[in-house]
C-alpha cells in the first residue's frame, strides 16, 4: 500500500487527490497529459437528465487569484454519458465519481434511477446541491437544510452507492447543511463548490459574465474552504472531502489537517493540466520525510 492511500467511508482511494467536477470533463483530454491512474479519483462533469447547452456569451472572468465561471452545467445528458463516457472513466484505473445535478427533486431521483443499474462501474455519486449558475435546483436546494434532508433521504432509499453531497459555501451556517446531509444518510460531504461572485467591466458598466454572476474558484477561496472543512469536520461523523483553491501539495496537507479525508483539485488543472503529478510526488516525499501515512493527518488540527 502506498503512503498516500486514503479511505472515504467505505471507499478506498489510492491517493487523496480527486479531480473536481467541471475541471476535467470525463478524463479524455487530461489523459493526454499524464497517467490519470495516479489519482484517487475523477469526478465527472455535472450531469443532468437531459443534455444542457449551458449559458450563452462570456463564461469566464479572471481575478487576481482566481476566476469566475458561468458555464451553466453544459453536459451531454446522463444517457449519453452512460453510453459513451462511463466505461472510459472506468478504464482509467482510478476512482469513478459521477457528479449528479438537477433542477428539481424529480430530476435527482430520475438521475439515481439511471445510474444505480451501473453501480459496478461507479465508486461514488457526488450529488451537486451547489451549482450557482443555473436558475433552479442545485444551489437553491443546497441552501435549505429541509430540502437537503428530503432529497438526500429519498436518494438513500433508491441506491446503495456512496452518496457524497457537494455543498455550497453561499450559506450562513455550513454546519447546518452538512448535518442535514449526514442525518439523511449521506456517506460524505464535499466542501466547497464555488462562491457566488460578480466582476464588472468598468468601461461598459456591465458584468463581464453574460450570466451576470458566476462561481468563484481558485486560490482566493481556499481559506473559506479550509474554514468550512474545519468547522464541519468538528461536528460530523461522516468524512469530509476538501475542495477549493488547491494549487500544490501544501494546500492538500492543509485541507487534511483541517479534517478532509480526500481533496479535490479543480481550477489548478485549468492552468497546469499535469499539476497532480507534481502534487503526488511532493506528497510522497512529505510522507517519506515525516515517516507518516498521509491519512494520519486527517483532522489533526489544533485549534487555539
Amino acid at each position, binding site marked *: 500500500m502506498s503512503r498516500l492511500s486514503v479511505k472515504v467511508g467505505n471507499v478506498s482511494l489510492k491517493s487523496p487527490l480527486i479531480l473536481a467536477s*467541471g*475541471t*476535467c*470533463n470525463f478524463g479524455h*483530454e*487530461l489523459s*493526454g*497529459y*499524464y497517467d490519470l491512474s495516479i489519482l484517487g479519483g475523477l469526478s465527472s*462533469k455535472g450531469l443532468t437528465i437531459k443534455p444542457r*447547452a*449551458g449559458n*450563452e456569451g*462570456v*463564461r*469566464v*472572468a*479572471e*481575478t*487576481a*487569484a*482566481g*476566476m469566475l*465561471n458561468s*458555464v451553466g452545467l*453544459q453536459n451531454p445528458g446522463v444517457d449519453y454519458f452512460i453510453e459513451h463516457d462511463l466505461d472510459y472513466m472506468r478504464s482509467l484505473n482510478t476512482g469513478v465519481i459521477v457528479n449528479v445535478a438537477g433542477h428539481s427533486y424529480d430530476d435527482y431521483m430520475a438521475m439515481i434511477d439511471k445510474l444505480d443499474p451501473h453501480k459496478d462501474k461507479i465508486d461514488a455519486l457526488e450529488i451537486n446541491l451547489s451549482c450557482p449558475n443555473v436558475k433552479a435546483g442545485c444551489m437553491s436546494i443546497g441552501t435549505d437544510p429541509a430540502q437537503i434532508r428530503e432529497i438526500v433521504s429519498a436518494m438513500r432509499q433508491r441506491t446503495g452507492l456512496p452518496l457524497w453531497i457537494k455543498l455550497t459555501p453561499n450559506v450562513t451556517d455550513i454546519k447546518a447543511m452538512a448535518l442535514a446531509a449526514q442525518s439523511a444518510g449521506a456517506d460524505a460531504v464535499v466542501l466547497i463548490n464555488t462562491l457566488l461572485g460578480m466582476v464588472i467591466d468598468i468601461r461598459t458598466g456591465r458584468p463581464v459574465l453574460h450570466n451576470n454572476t458566476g462561481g468563484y474558484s*481558485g486560490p482566493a477561496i481556499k481559506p473559506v474552504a479550509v474554514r468550512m472543512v474545519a468547522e464541519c469536520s468538528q461536528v460530523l461523523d461522516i468524512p469530509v472531502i476538501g475542495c477549493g483553491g488547491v494549487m500544490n501539495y501544501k494546500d492538500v496537507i492543509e485541507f487534511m489537517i483541517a479534517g478532509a479525508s480526500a481533496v479535490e483539485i479543480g481550477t489548478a*488543472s*485549468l*492552468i*497546469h*493540466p*499535469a499539476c497532480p503529478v507534481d502534487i503526488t510526488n511532493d506528497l510522497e516525499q512529505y510522507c517519506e520525510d515525516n515517516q507518516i501515512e498521509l491519512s494520519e493527518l486527517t483532522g489533526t488540527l489544533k485549534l487555539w
Partner: protein
Amino acid sequence: MNQEYTCKVLKRVMLTSDTAYLTIGCADIAGKAVPGQFVNVSCFRFLKRPFGIASVDKVNGTFCIGIKIVGEGTKELASIEEGSTINVLGPLGNGFDLGLSDSFILVSGGTGVFPVNFAYEVLRQAGKDVTMVQGFRDKSQICLTCDDYIVTTDSGDYGIKGTCIAGLDTLSPDKNTVVCCVGPVPMMKAVGNWAKDKGLRCYVSMEQRMACGIGICLVCVCKVRAEEEGIPFKHVRCCKDGPVFPFEEVIL
C-alpha cells in the same frame, strides 16, 4: 504525451505601437504545429492567454506569436524581456486542413493576421496557389505584410479603401479555391457569405474568452448548427473542437 513547456523568449520586436512579436524556443511545438493552431501562454496574471501561432522554424526549433495589447496580461507579455522564460501549452486546437485544395485565398483582420501568416508560409512551401488578403483599420496597424498581398484599410490611407471584401472583389477564383479567414466576427461573416455566393468552401477561426485551452472547462464555447431536429444550436469548445470550423456550420 502532451506537456506544458517552459520556453525561452528568444526575441521580441514591436510590429506596431501596440503589437509585439515574440520568437519562442520550443522544438516540440515547432515540430508539431499546423496553421490555425494556438498556444496558451502564462503571463503574470492568473490564467494563461491564447495566441495563434504566427510562424514556425522547424530547423531552429522556434515559433512566433503576435501579441496585441488589449489588457493587463497582454501588456505585460508584450513587454517581456528577451531571455525570460514562459510556460506554454501547445500546439492546441485543430488548425486548418491545407490539404483540401491546391488553391487558397487567405483573409485576415485584426490579430487574425498572425495565424494566417503561418498558413501562408506552409502553403507557399508546398508550392500551392495562394492569395493573401489583409484587412486593417488604418496604415498604423499594418504588419506582417508584403507587396504580393492585397491590403485594404478602412481609412483608405494604405492599399484599397474599404473592408477586405473590397480586396476579395478584385479576385476571380476558380471553383476549387478554399477560403480561410481569421478575424473579427462581422468580417468572418462577410467573407463567409462572399465565398458562399461564389460557391467556394470557407473555413473560419472562432475566438472566445478562454481558460484552460485544452477542452476541460467548457468556458470558450461558440454555437454551431445542431444535427438533431428541434434543437436550435449546439455549444462546442473553440479551444478543442475548433478554433477552425466550416463557415456553414457555425452560427455567427
